[in-house]
């Protein structure tokens, strides 16, 4: 009996910690989503917040935009990460230096990195606009973040810049885990470099790549500060993803109830997405795993 008591006492701090940090905010968010809470008043409104979201075309567009943002950005990160890892994995002189040079976008605080990108994208002083004018692509200054479509893709580029190093390093680590003997055996059998990459490297790193894609997808989905610093979700909502929208409603307009409803929708969407994803992960593991 006293042993049970002691065991509970030992895990109590952890339980309290999780309750305060995770459970309480979660429960509170769900509760708020059924109210019209503002700064100093709140009353129960049932499903009204959710009903509003369902009817809103703007909100549907935001969901679509968010998934488009996520899928495009993650695909580019994975592709660049794969190419980068393959290059860093090759036996070239000075590869240690290259490996270090991959890190800065990830190491630099995002806010500082984004201010750098703000200057790059600046129409009058930015190097991108300037260079494009110099080689004759543009006739005059171009403000990358001022137009709906260019702002969205410019934000994607900045997001890719931040997210690619980690994907690269994870894939590089996975590649280095592949036994050298496999490549030698394939070489003895006459497999070309490309064939070895396709038939050995890719399948061998596939489980890591798939897990990495899920992590990267969640981070990209929830990526806030990059968009906020660059465009604050504009112009005219062109870069407003779900997380930015939630912030604008809840913190910008003090509509905590509606903001909470959005947050709950995000949780549900991400959970559903992860569920589908894990289903495919299982399939990938069966195909490329060792069992």
């Amino acid at each position: 009996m006293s042993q049970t008591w002691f065991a509970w006492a030992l895990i109590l701090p952890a339980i309290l910690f999780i309750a305060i940090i995770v459970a309480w905010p979660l429960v509170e968010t769900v509760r708020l989503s059924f109210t019209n809470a503002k700064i100093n008043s709140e009353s129960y409104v049932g499903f009204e917040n959710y009903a509003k979201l369902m009817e809103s075309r703007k909100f549907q567009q935001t969901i679509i935009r968010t998934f488009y943002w996520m899928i495009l950005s993650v695909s580019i990160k994975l592709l660049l990460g794969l190419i980068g890892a393959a290059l860093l994995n090759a036996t070239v002189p000075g590869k240690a230096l290259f490996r270090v040079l991959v890190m800065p976008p990830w190491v630099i605080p995002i806010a500082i990195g984004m201010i750098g990108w703000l200057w790059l994208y600046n129409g009058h002083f930015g190097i991108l606009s300037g260079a494009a004018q110099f080689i004759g692509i543009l006739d005059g200054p171009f403000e990358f973040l001022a137009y709906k479509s260019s702002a969205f893709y410019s934000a994607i580029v900045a997001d890719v810049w931040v997210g690619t190093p980690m994907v690269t390093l994870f894939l590089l680590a996975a590649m280095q885990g592949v036994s050298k003997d496999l490549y030698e055996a394939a070489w003895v059998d006459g497999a070309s470099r490309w064939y070895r990459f396709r038939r050995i490297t890719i399948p061998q790193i596939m489980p890591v790549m798939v897990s990495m894609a899920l992590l990267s997808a969640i981070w990209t989905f929830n990526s806030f500060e990059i968009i906020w610093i660059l465009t604050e979700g504009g112009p005219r909502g062109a870069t407003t993803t779900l997380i930015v929208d939630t912030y604008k409603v809840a913190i910008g307009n003090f509509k905590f109830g509606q903001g909470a409803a959005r947050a709950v929708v995000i949780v549900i969407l991400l959970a559903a997405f992860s569920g589908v994803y894990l289903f495919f992960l299982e399939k990938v593991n069966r195909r490329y795993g060792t069992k």
Partner: protein
Amino acid sequence: MATLDLENISKSFGPAQVLHNIELAIEDKEFVVFVGPSGCGKSTLLRIIAGLEEATEGRVIIDGDDVSGEPPVERGISMVFQSYALYPHLTVYENIAFPLRVQRMPKSELDARVREAAEILQLSDRLPHKPGQLSGGQRQRVAIGRSIVRNPKVFLFDEPLSNLDAALRGGMRVELSRLHRELDATMVYVTHDQVEAMTMADRIVVLNDGRVEQFGSPMELYHHPATKFVAGFIGQPNMNFVPGEIASIDGDTVRIKLDGGGEMNVPVEQGDTAAGERVEVGMRPEDITTGEGFEMNIEVLERLGGTAITYGKLNDGQSFCAALEGSVAAREGQIIKLAIAPEDCHVFRRDGRVMRRKSAPPVFDPEKLSQKGS
């Protein structure tokens, strides 16, 4: 199938030279084993034959063609790796089929070849499984299967049995010998295990420090080791070396005065030796019998059934080992009287070279090679 000639192969990694002017001529259908302690360069030599490593100097000639600059696949070799190097994400079938897929072989022919290889290696019922589900011995066979589907001219094996437990290793030795007979192929096999070398090889290359110490049949190496190194490496338990000095040369024999006392007349070729030269007398433990020769204080006695291996010290403190009859009346702590026939002794000069024994069992059996040709 194919002959394999190595001409003056040298290899350096930076300032360290690991192979020194290796010259070998390996016959068609021969099973040749490279053996030596770790770091002797045997694996490097194999990798040079395979084309995985480039020789600093010298030529690799397969079936009369100089393949030195060729990539591995152009050399007509296949290789089985120590780690097996199976593709863990592919089934046994796809692992064996891999080299044929690389060649883009038509499906029906590929299927026939894979199934034939699986048949030879008793893997037919394992084809749909992945390597992770197989036992060590089965993985080994898959690796061999992958190497035989290509019908290579020369098979290369890099310590293929070293990851197996002792019992399985014995079984695989027999299987490999059987496979060699069935495939009728030239095989080069690297190992540090002298038992594997002795049991499987037609001829053995003993390598030491990047040099060929001796190239010959197992029995030639056993009865006529060219150097002290070979004598110490081949044979189990290891040969005893007893220091001494040439007292005189009497006609057919050399009279040796042992440091620990006693003299013996050993029938060996004298060459340019003279009285007074320091030598070492090599005595194989299994040539030693009980008798009125010299005394040993038994420290450890290992009874294996058929034989009893005794380890101990001679009167002058020299460590010694004798493999006696299994039923010998002896126990640890006892002093036992031993003897050896002088014609069974080997004599090594100071530089390690042997003075060739005059009377030893016939060693080279030309029948063995000619049978393979038929």
